[in-house]
């Protein structure tokens, strides 16, 4: 008898089935991914700004950031940044007598900051390429009009660079949703893969639940791909298709 792919009771919603756990995991994975993406975008803008600043030291820091982060496995970086980040914040707060020794940092922001810092290195390269693709004459024209940096960035550079960045950023979004699954190794957040593993280990129906979890990840991917195609179409309005 094949015990797998037959027992739909396992997917009922409520205390007997695991649908609710999986769907909560899916929701948490989406929340983590969105927050990670925002944090990663900020790190990416900062990194790209540093690499293009022209200042020797800032450029060097930016180079080190992208080179080291992109050379190391995400799993290792997640461990390193998660523990180092929480230890540093805790050390700071305890040192300043703002918290006691039993103080614990919420796993959600810690994991998001760690994943966001990793994503930032990849984002730096995408945004740097996009900024360089904006014709230099446009920036010069904006400067000639007397626009200050903020205005130049907001009105000329940013809208145009986003058009070049969408392809790379779309790929990074898909990577972010997939990399969020690494959080399972920390064992502190019930995101989708953790929920799936819990269900699989609890019922011993491994193949069934990992298949179900995989389908939910695929759902995120396919939805994202459809949305991405729409965004690209919108950003490219006003440009003739080659």
């Amino acid at each position, binding site marked *: 008898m094949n015990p*797998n792919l037959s027992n739909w009771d396992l997917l009922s919603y409520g205390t007997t089935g695991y649908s609710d756990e999986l769907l909560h995991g899916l929701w948490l994975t989406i929340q983590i991914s969105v927050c990670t993406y925002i944090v990663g975008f900020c790190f990416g803008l900062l990194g790209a700004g540093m690499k293009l600043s022209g200042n020797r030291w800032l450029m060097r820091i930016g180079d080190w950031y992208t080179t*080291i982060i992109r*050379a*190391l*496995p*995400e*799993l*290792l970086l997640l*461990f*390193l940044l998660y*523990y*180092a980040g929480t*230890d540093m914040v805790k050390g700071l707060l305890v040192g300043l007598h703002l918290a006691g020794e039993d103080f614990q940092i919420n796993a959600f922001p810690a994991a998001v900051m760690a994943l966001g810092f990793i994503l930032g290195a990849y984002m730096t390269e995408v945004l740097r390429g996009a900024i360089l693709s904006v014709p230099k004459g446009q920036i010069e024209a904006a400067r000639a009009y007397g626009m200050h940096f903020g205005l130049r960035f907001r009105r000329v550079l940013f809208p145009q660079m986003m058009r070049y960045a969408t392809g790379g950023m779309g790929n990074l979004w*898909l990577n972010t949703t*997939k*990399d969020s*699954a*690494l959080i*399972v*190794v920390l064992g502190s957040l019930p995101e989708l*893969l953790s929920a*799936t*593993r819990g269900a*699989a280990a609890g019922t*011993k*129906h*491994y*193949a069934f639940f*990992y*298949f179900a*979890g*995989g389908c939910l*990840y*695929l759902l995120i*991917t*396919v939805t994202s791909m459809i949305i991405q195609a729409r965004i690209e179409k919108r950003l490219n309005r006003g440009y003739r298709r080659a």
Partner: protein
Amino acid sequence: MEIFLDGIKYLFVVALPYLITAIPVTLGLTLISGVIGNLLALPVAVARTSHNPVLWVPAYCYILVMRGTPLLIQLFFIYYGLGELLPGTWVRHSWLWPYLRQGFWYAVFAFSLNTAGYTGEILRVGLNAVPHGEIEAGRAFGMTNRLIFWRIKLPRAIRIQLPTMAGEVILLLKATSLASTITVFDIMGVREDLFAQSFRTYPPLLGAAIIYITLVFVFTRLLYWVEKHLNRDRLPPEPVILPLATP
């Protein structure tokens, strides 16, 4: 301060020598899965570029699933899922069983299938990027479609996509660290062991980071060297000093 120095001493005296012993496992995972994955990528890419829906639809779905779900869940599905299904079948008593009791071969299986999906997509783009004139030239020479594929399309596609495929090998090298989650003693697996022995968080992690950076650096150089030799025609030409033009 003392804790800091003690940690550094631990890193170099205990952690690094032990972590180095795991390099063959990480390299083995990378090379075996890389070879199998790239070989499997070929039929995937060919099927994907076919006009026959019986071929391209399954290939499309395969690539979508491999690229659309986390590698970690694929690994768990294969390790725990097959581990659940196989013992009830003939495999339990066959010559394969001693291998299938180790996480290593499940990891190789998962990484190969995953690489086949990613590289299959890369090769598909390469196959579509072969200049049409070159295929026409082959046809003008009276080559059969099969000959055109093996002599013109495939070599050209691989050379066009060589930098991307090389990048894929580096990504695979980094991805093998996930094997540590299914009890494989690769570099990250040994790191876990060191942590369990000493309860030190940072020295084993830093040691592993040093080794991974070194490996990635060596791999990048090697792949760049291969690329340079295979794509000699696409490199910028040697500078030629022209004689001064005379009026």
